[in-house]
């Protein structure tokens, strides 16, 4: 029986899944997921080609006008799905190319490590060719000669699927020299990381790719001017790149129309929910779907709990309240509420959860993952954790909350080299604003043991 795997090992094995059956998805309405199989197996090349795979590459390379790809993307206004919402078409129009400029790199950011985010994994594990197709288009538009998929080390299954799909694509002539007889060359390698959230920041990612410590770089120059090995480099998120083929095939108007009159941002979005809901999961829905609709798909709160607050798109977004559930979840609307759409995967907080304890957990994450370059981040975040630990144990002192306000303000946008510190500040600032009374309850007792709790690093 040495080969046998205990049944438990099977039953709790995690598998990425979309909670929409095939019957609910079509090419017209679900550009990201319509090809996915109900059995959750990867869509390999044969099936992908049967389902119109690589048609956008055929079309774009036949037309032979890379600038037209950029123009299409600009018009469709595909906003970056890595969290910042920057227009991909605009970014591409700023990449240096032509003249003496050497051809550069097209880098897919597949570092997915934002707490609460599990969307890129689905796309890579079940539909690797859509990402490859999007990368070919991105490379064509930006004159990139080589592409990397910067994949977090823990995504072992994604690496397996992507590598096999890249081999398939190369064998069939969709990667390599003279793609589909067009004269355009491009190939892709999967680069797997070795941990650390900061690798997802695009300039830290480039340093990591070059085999260095993952400290961000000062900008400018932006990667599109000087990125990997000094060459123009375009960094885009997995989901962003997966949007490109349908835009090229069906046009910007169609893409804009996908979200109806919900929002001016076009397209669809992989939205999701995690936390104590009945059915945590992922769905492809029109951009601008409301939190209420998404929560309803998730079957509501688990065991009839009450919703106290929610994060719209990961740990580095600001807390929203139940009253915000009816807002369309797009970049600008959520931004106006003092939060960010981020990755668009909701984390729900139940009534009985202490906001102080939750903030302590979040700031432990940010403190541990700081790259250590800037003082407010490197020193301010561990200090923040200590204060939250004290408050959590009812051992905060007068002035601690004001100090938290200040520590959060010191991490605000523009004060540090990268957006890690602002990401740490936003949930804290919003929690202090909406739930100040909970923090105040932790004040008043003498300082004690609580300050000695370590930040759980546990590195070996």
């Amino acid at each position, binding site marked *: 029986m040495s080969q046998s*795997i*205990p*049944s*438990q*090992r099977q039953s*709790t*094995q*995690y598998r990425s899944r979309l909670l929409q059956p095939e019957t609910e998805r079509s090419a017209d309405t679900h550009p990201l997921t319509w090809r996915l199989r109900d059995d959750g197996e990867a869509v390999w090349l044969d099936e992908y080609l049967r389902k119109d795979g690589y048609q956008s590459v055929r079309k774009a390379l036949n037309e032979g006008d890379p600038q037209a790809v950029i123009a299409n993307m600009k018009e469709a206004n595909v906003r970056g799905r890595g969290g910042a919402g920057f227009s991909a078409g605009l970014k591409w129009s700023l990449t240096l190319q032509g003249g003496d400029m050497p051809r550069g790199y097209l880098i897919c950011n597949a570092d*997915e*490590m*934002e*707490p*609460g*985010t*599990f969307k*890129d*994994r689905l796309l890579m594990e079940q539909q690797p060719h859509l990402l490859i197709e999007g990368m070919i288009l991105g490379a064509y538009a930006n004159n990139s000669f080589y592409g990397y998929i910067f994949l*977090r*080390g*823990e*995504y*072992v*299954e994604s690496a397996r699927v992507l590598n096999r799909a890249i081999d398939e694509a190369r064998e069939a002539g969709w990667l390599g020299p003279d793609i589909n007889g067009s004269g355009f060359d491009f190939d892709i390698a999967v680069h*797997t*990381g*070795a*941990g*650390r959230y900061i690798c997802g920041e695009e300039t830290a990612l480039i340093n*990591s*790719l*070059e*085999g*260095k*410590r*993952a400290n961000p770089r000062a900008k400018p120059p932006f990667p599109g001017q000087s990125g*990997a*090995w000094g060459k123009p480099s375009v960094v885009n998120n997995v989901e962003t790149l997966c949007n490109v083929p349908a835009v090229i095939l069906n046009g910007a108007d169609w893409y804009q129309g996908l979200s109806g009159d919900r929002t001016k941002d076009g397209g669809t979005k992989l939205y*999701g*929910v*995690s*936390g*104590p809901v009945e059915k*945590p*999961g992922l769905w492809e829905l029109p951009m601008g779907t409301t939190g209420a609709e998404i929560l309803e798909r998730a079957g509501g709160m688990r065991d009839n709990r009450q919703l106290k607050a929610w994060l719209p798109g990961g*740990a580095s977004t600001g807390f929203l309240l139940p009253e915000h559930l009816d807002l369309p979840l797009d970049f600008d609307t959520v931004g106006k509420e003092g939060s960010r759409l981020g990755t668009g995967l909701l*984390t*729900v907080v*139940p009534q009985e*959860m202490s906001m102080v304890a*939750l903030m302590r*957990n*979040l700031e*432990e*994450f940010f403190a541990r*993952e700081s790259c250590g370059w800037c003082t407010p981040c490197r020193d301010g975040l561990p200090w923040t954790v200590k204060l939250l630990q004290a408050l959590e144990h009812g051992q905060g002192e007068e002035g601690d909350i004001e100090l938290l306000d200040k520590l959060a303000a010191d991490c605000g946008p523009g004060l540090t080299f990268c957006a890690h510190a602002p990401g740490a500040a936003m949930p804290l600032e919003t929690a202090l604003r909406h739930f100040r009374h909970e923090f105040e309850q932790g004040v008043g007792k003498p300082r004690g043991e609580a300050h000695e709790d370590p930040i*759980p*690093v*546990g*590195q*070996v």
Partner: protein
Amino acid sequence: MAEPVSTSTLIGSDGFELHPADETAILEQLKHYEQPQAACIDALKIVQRRHGWVPDDAIPAIARVLGIGPGAVEGVATFYSLIFRQPVGRHVVLVCDSSSCFLTGFDELKQALVNELGVDYGGTTSDNRFTLLPVCCLGACDGAPALMIDNDTYGPVTPDDLPRLLEGYP
């Protein structure tokens, strides 16, 4: 009087030889990149796959193959959390301690792991079987609370699941 210190006593290079297959594997990685330093993380992972961790002595050996300074390799080897610089057990348990797991039973799961294994973060069981470490969000939040054992991701995992789950890793 201070003895002159050679780099080999700062980062010992004696007694470590890269396995020929590993050296080949590292050189194979070079073809993906413009410059050899880029293969540094791959090289550390290749060494770690064979030894379970990256001993100090491996650093100059890797540096030599890549043709870069040992300091550059050491800097990288100490930055990344999945490169282990101390011996670890035969299996590494990475328990996700990020927000979605925290909201769905991480505390209980972590406590159960500590009870079951008898070690806390960074610790290795006395039979050298498991090392326990925390990890950032595993991107399995719809299956929270989640953990990884070696290359396998599990979730949702309850404390009751643990004994049989761990059994699969002798």
